[in-house]
């Protein structure tokens, strides 16, 4: 009947019987939409980064003297000591991204129903699939990328600050730069973000599903049933299988995706093949796909609450 959006190039101002059409990018703009609404996606990691940097700044008082002591240790221990604050900063930001991602998902399909704006979004030619996938892409793609960039920037500031501090005390900054493998660290970080996002995908999918379903208290609806099952199992059978499964879903990526040194968590070996052959990864991804598909299906029936 009418020309589809791809048939006619943009012909501004000309009104023809076939109706004006222009190329659209519903997914791209839906992701922007999420960023406009949820500024916590980048503000929260930025605030944590500033706090981390401030803490680091304070902790570097007396660094030159301490560095001299540290360098007397055996190389492995010296390296671990010098690297420590960089890893701590990265972990705090990764943890922040997880918290932001979970709370984002718990609100993503709820806020549009709460403020009735779902009636506006549904008046536009954007499918439920596009909408839900754009929301799922926030914790799975956007947040990891944003957090990665912020971690790298934070670590660069830390490195530069340490170098300047050491040089003003007549020391060489080389002890920092050789012991903090910056580029290698970036690669590990990127790999880590992919591994974590895939492992946590069912958590985000579940949160999205609950946010589209619950009328209120999405956090409680998402968490209490799981705790209930765990306690029920403990009381009835005296076991903690379900609880340990949940714990594995939170942290279980680490032993599969990485091989750690015997004495420290620094500079782990990457084990992507082992990770990809972990059944927990694939079972989790199947659950994630089911939860997201259910969230898409469910949004068709949803209106304001």
């Amino acid at each position, binding site marked *: 009947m009418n020309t589809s959006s791809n048939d006619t190039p943009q012909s501004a101002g000309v009104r023809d019987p076939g109706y*004006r059409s222009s190329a659209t990018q519903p997914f791209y703009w839906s992701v922007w939409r999420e960023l406009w609404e949820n500024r916590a996606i980048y503000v929260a990691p930025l605030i944590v980064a500033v706090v981390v940097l401030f803490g680091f700044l304070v902790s570097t008082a007396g660094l030159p003297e301490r560095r001299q002591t540290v360098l007397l240790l055996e190389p492995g221990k010296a390296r671990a000591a010098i690297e420590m604050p960089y890893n701590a900063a990265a972990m705090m930001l990764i943890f922040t991204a997880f918290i932001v991602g979970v709370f984002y998902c718990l609100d993503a399909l709820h806020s549009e129903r709460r*403020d*009735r704006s779902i009636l*506006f979004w549904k008046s536009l030619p954007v499918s439920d699939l596009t909408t839900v996938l754009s929301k799922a892409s926030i914790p799975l793609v956007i947040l990891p990328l944003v957090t990665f960039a912020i971690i790298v920037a934070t670590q660069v500031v830390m490195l530069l600050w340490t170098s300047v501090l050491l040089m003003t005390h007549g020391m060489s900054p080389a002890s920092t730069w050789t012991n903090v493998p910056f580029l290698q660290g970036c690669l590990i970080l990127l790999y880590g973000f992919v591994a974590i996002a895939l492992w946590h995908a069912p958590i985000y999918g579940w949160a999205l599903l609950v946010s589209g379903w619950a009328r209120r208290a999405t956090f409680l609806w998402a968490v209490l049933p799981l705790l209930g099952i765990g306690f029920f199992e403990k009381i009835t059978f005296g076991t903690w299988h379900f609880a340990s499964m949940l714990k594995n879903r939170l942290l279980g990526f680490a032993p599969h995706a990485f091989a750690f040194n015997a004495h420290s968590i620094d500079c782990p070996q990457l084990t992507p093949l082992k990770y990809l052959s972990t059944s927990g990864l694939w079972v989790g991804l199947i659950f994630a796909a089911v939860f997201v598909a259910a969230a898409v299906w469910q949004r068709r029936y*949803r209106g304001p609450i």
Partner: protein
Amino acid sequence: MATIEARGLRKTFGTTIALNGIDLRVEEGRILGLVGPNGAGKTTALNAILGLTPYQGELKVLGRDPWNERNELMRDVSFIADVAVLPRWVRVTQLLDYVAGVHPRFDRAKAEAFLAKTTIKPTSKVRELSKGMVAQLHLALVMAIDARLLVLDEPTLGLDILYRKQFYDSLLNDYFDHSRTIVVTTHQVEEVQDVLTDLMFINRGRIVLQCSMEEFDSRYVEVMVNPEHVAAARALKPLHERPVFGRSVLLFDHVDRNQLAALGEVRRPSIADLFVAVMSNNAAQPQPPPVPSETYGASKGAN
């Protein structure tokens, strides 16, 4: 092809019947006013037309099945489902970016030109705008979309008279042409009387009156009857009678105007008068239990 065509359209929520087998045909280029009391099924009917709720029976909008072809349909259909559904956090420019980015038939320049005539600033957030300005903003977006069907559900509820008047003036002068179709529900029927081309009353999930406005003008006559002629007037079987300042005003359907002119002062009834007449007659007849409230999909709060 009719813009909207429904046969036996039916929708139930549990044991309550929201739509009880509606037959409906809206041709291209018409402006249909859907009028009914609260809980009559208006919003349910619109939701079915917009593919927001599943239904039983046959329904085609622009030749498509709204529930199963919703994504395709929404390129040709616009709607304002309620006042104040624009998200409060969004900036005017972001809203324009978004709609331009997702809607193949949106003309951004047109929307901006319309907004330039208002006091809305492009950098404002929706939460900083008054209710009337939010309605103007939504109208600016909708008018810049080259849609074939526009559905308006109480688009001016809660706005002051100036905004309401301006809303319909803009719609008629800058938007409507005979290749478009508009369906509007409103409780402020006086204001749309001269806007509509067709009228439909709906009550308890059924259509109780359906006519074009030409038909309305030729069929219905209101007479302020002189006291001495009241008995004669009543003999002509008026639809409705109401007292106004001690005199009787009778509403007639299909009665010769010259005959009525002899009884008193003849005038054009308002839609509101006809509505009251039809609804009170309708209520007198035995009916199934009323639908308590208009319900949206599986879940909707109070209207």
